[in-house]
């Protein structure tokens, strides 16, 4: 179940974001994640930002100490890996709006890749604090997606939140699916905007994870376990979960407001 792989490539995507590529021949689908073990340090859930072929990848944003240490992994270093786990984006839709905030683009990019490979039309609303932090903007463009940007400081695209861009796009286009990943407050807004136009939304959710096997309950979110029922959820199943967008659980299991 567990493999040890050596990092084969390290790409600084943005000032705060690093992609690690490694040979890993497990079958994977966009939306799924792996448990990445930095020996002597920690094991963390990480979405696969590259899901095709034998060279997979994760894209890590510097948050706390652990993610910073993960970023310092070098080419040739061994890391433990298990998975992939969890649900996937359903790539049957033909005209897709992707809404990503922060590191959310990590899990959305391979989904967009697959959609484009299936000749679907893809529009991306991408948000970041500032223009240099726009993750995978070039990757989305290179695959032929239309990319609309929002930055907190207005250094590129609209000034403000990506949810504004998303609402505007939803009003203009005839999308048959919305895929989103980012802070839950952001995703709640996206879901509300899409609901008005009856467009189904798939959201990728994050919770603290330990077993990733649907057992330890660390990742409980209402009646769901994010590790097995998610991370990609049909928004219709989430909207009635009171904790969604409001509470998560810390490693002790204590409910903590966002």
């Amino acid at each position: 179940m567990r493999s040890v792989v050596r990092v084969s490539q390290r790409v600084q995507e943005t000032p705060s974001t690093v992609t690690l590529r490694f040979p890993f021949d497990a079958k994977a689908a966009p939306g799924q994640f792996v448990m990445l073990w930095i020996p002597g340090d920690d094991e963390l859930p990480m979405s696969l930002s590259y899901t095709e072929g034998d060279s997979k990848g994760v894209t890590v944003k510097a948050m706390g100490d652990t993610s910073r240490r993960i970023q310092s992994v070098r080419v040739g270093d061994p890391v433990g890996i298990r998975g992939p786990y969890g649900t996937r984006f359903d790539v049957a839709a033909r005209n897709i709006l992707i809404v990503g905030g922060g590191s959310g683009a990590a899990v959305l990019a391979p989904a967009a890749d697959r959609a484009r490979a299936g000749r679907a039309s893809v529009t991306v609303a991408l948000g970041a604090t500032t223009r240099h932090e726009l993750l995978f903007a070039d990757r989305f463009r290179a695959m032929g997606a239309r990319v609309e940007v929002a930055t907190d400081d207005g250094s590129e695209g609209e000034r403000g939140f990506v949810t504004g861009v998303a609402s505007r796009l939803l009003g203009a286009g005839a999308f048959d699916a919305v895929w989103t990943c980012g802070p839950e407050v952001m995703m709640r807004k996206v879901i509300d905007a899409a609901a008005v136009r009856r467009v189904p939304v798939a959201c990728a959710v994050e919770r603290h994870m330990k077993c990733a096997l649907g057992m330890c309950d660390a990742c409980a979110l209402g009646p769901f376990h994010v590790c097995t029922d998610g991370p990609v959820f049909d928004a219709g199943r989430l909207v009635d979960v009171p904790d969604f967008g409001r509470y998560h659980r810390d490693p002790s299991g204590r409910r903590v407001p966002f």
Partner: protein
Amino acid sequence: MADLTVRLAGLTLRNPFVLASGIWGESGESLAGAWHAGAGAVVTKSIGSLARSGFPNPTVETYGRWGMLNAMGLPNPGIEEYPREIEVARRAGAPVIGSVFGGDAEEFARLAARIGSTGVVAIELNLSCPHAEGFGTEVGSEPRDVEAIVRAVVREVRIPVIAKITPNTSDPEALAAAAERGGAAAVSAINTVRGLAIDVRLRRPVLAHGLGGLSGPAIKPVGLACVWQAFGKVGIPLIGIGGIASAEDALEYVMAGARAVEVGTAVAVEGIGVFGRLARDLSGLLDELGIARLEDAVGIAHGAPAPPVGGASSDALLTRSP
């Protein structure tokens, strides 16, 4: 349809399959989910006095479908935060058994008193956690400690107290007997078996904590042995735990002497649907074996008279021999 109802320690369960402690036990919604999926009762995660994050990841290692090693480190939100979760589960209708762990008898008693006031139907004492007063051995490996803890708890609460014992002992009977002397209403056996895994490529233990506890089918024989050894030696009912993944597994435990069983790792392997399936399968198995009520099977593997071999009971069958 065979009757799966189980009575033990003053409780009546719709079936013998109880969600084991530490699995789906952090949130009330999950406990409720196990109940809705068909569990006979649910045990909470083991709760301590203060919030604990548990050990860092990696906390689990898996061995195909037959085993799992974990060292969660007893993460829990602490006894003051946890009643909310019990309340959610109770409102869904689940009979909740509250599990607690402590460092000594006094702490156990305090925790039991608190959790006993939340509407749980019974209390299970996790007497097999690696956080002892002593020097690294488990709280529950000495019969005299087990007796003292159980006695202290029983004095504090009015609901049945279940002592969950460790398999990491030379003498499980002695632990069960100590629990009975202390006043336990039932004994549950077993917790995980001490184990370790090493990653030879990373040259270190897989689990951040090093040592862990083995669960799943690999330990079924071990749990069965503990139940087998305790049955008849103690007068209180036994709850079998360890590696149960099929109706036959459960019936093995019952025939060895258990009145109910707890299911843990199988939830990870099969999903929560395991509870509904186990109850259905057990009912079918009992029908096939001509056992009308599960309770009739408790302990029947002990001193079983030899099944009919050339005996009167098979005379009625067609004898086609010439």
